[in-house]
């Protein structure tokens, strides 16, 4: 066994040189690269973790937003429903009011028409009845209808009871006048007949004013400041009108 001491020491030096060179060219760089890569990977993991946390937070926030939106949507929907409901009620109310209004107006129109009709009827019927009565009285009894009316009024004045007579008389004492209104022409005889009756039974110094009016519907009246004595075909016509009204109402009900 031989050991060459020159080679032995050379090998020691060689190995130390090799150690120095490898440390310089290999280990430091490789370890540095590994460390750098590990740091990078750690950074990537940290970034991924950060991203995960951010994503989680974003998801949470998104879910919260979604929930809020849902709640808002629900509340808006509910509000809209209530608004629509109240609007519908308002519209219904309005429609009802309009309908009621129209109905009232229609009823009023019908009423007014009916009244017009009845008034017209009453007017025509009055005229006809008056004409017929007059004719009949004249033909059968040779009695003038107007004379008869005046006569009846005069009889009423005569047959007044005391209380009524006083009530009629009171206004005249303060300078009032008795107004005689008739639907027909009062001839001087007729006027005289009424004047006599009034002066004899009410007051001697009574002032009587005569006038003619179509409104009286074939009649005659004596008026003294609110008190009056009258005869008219009106009472007879009221019955006729009532019959007509009842007939009309029943027809309307049948419809």
């Amino acid at each position, binding site marked *: *066994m*031989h*050991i*060459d*001491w*020159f*080679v*032995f*020491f*050379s*090998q*020691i030096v*060689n*190995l*130390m*040189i*090799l*150690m120095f*060179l*490898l*440390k310089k*060219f*290999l*280990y430091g*760089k*490789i*370890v*540095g*690269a*590994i460390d*750098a*890569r590990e740091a*990078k*990977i750690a950074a990537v993991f940290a970034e991924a973790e950060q991203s995960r946390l951010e994503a989680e937070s974003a998801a949470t926030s998104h879910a919260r937003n979604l929930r809020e939106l849902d709640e808002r949507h629900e509340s808006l929907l509910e509000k809209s429903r209530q608004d629509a409901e109240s609007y519908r009620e308002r519209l219904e109310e309005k429609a009802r009011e309009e309908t009621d209004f129209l109905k009232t107006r229609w009823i009023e129109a019908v009423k007014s028409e009916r009244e017009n009709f009845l008034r017209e009827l009453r007017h025509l019927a009055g005229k006809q009845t008056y004409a017929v009565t007059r004719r009949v009285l004249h033909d059968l009894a040779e009695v003038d209808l107007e004379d008869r009316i005046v006569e009846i009024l005069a009889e009423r004045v005569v047959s007044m009871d005391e209380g009524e007579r006083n009530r009629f008389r009171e206004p005249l004492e303060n300078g009032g006048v008795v107004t005689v209104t008739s639907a027909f022409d009062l001839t001087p005889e007729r006027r005289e007949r009424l004047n006599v009756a009034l002066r004899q039974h009410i007051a001697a110094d009574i002032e009587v004013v005569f006038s003619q009016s179509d409104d009286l519907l074939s009649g005659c009246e004596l008026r003294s400041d609110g008190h009056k004595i009258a005869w008219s075909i009106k009472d007879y016509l009221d019955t006729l009108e009532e019959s007509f009204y009842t007939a009309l109402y029943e027809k309307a009900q049948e419809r």
Partner: protein
Amino acid sequence: MEIVAINQISPDQVIFFAWKFVTINATLVYTWLIMGILVVGSVLITRNLSTERTMSRWQNLMEVIVTGIRGEIREMAKDGVDTYFPFIGTIFLFILLSNLLTFLPGYVAPTSSLTTTSALAILVFFAVPIYGISKQGIIEYLKEYIRPNPIFFPFHVMGELSRTLALAVRLFGNLMSHEKVVAILLAVTPLFFPIVMQALGLLIGLIQAYIFAVLAMVYIASATQTHEEGEHPPKTSS
């Protein structure tokens, strides 16, 4: 072609140049070859190091080796991995490459020379006290030689010497005997068997490199950690 004749036991005996005490023999030449390969390879590989997730195959290989060695060191020495790493790593890489290249015709491993293995063993022999003293201080380190009793001092010294000798001779014996076995087999059965033996040689070379590096690390670790492990853990004071 055999550089070392069958009757020659070491590449030291193949002398290319000699002048006075200066001798350039096959051991030195092949050592320089291995140094050259390692240094140039390192320079080439580390020229374009990548810190990204993709890297070159050579860089990957070197990273595997470096990570592996550091892992082994970390298992034995709990701390100071980077302190021991250049020394242990260089020994491992040198022996590994020196052993693996034996499949090349005309190549003789420098580690099959007792001179080289002795130089390696001597480096370990000196590295152990250097690391031990730098870690524990000279007093604590020297105290290890008289533990548990001063009587043990000669045994410690003998142990140091004998394990150094064992390191040198184990590596030399394995590599040298392998080369001789292959040479003899070539003469006896020139077909097939030498190939199997060459393949086996690669395994032996790897194992020997590993054993040498691990033992060196164990010796260093024992010199730097014995004291700490021998003491009871300090009690915590309130």
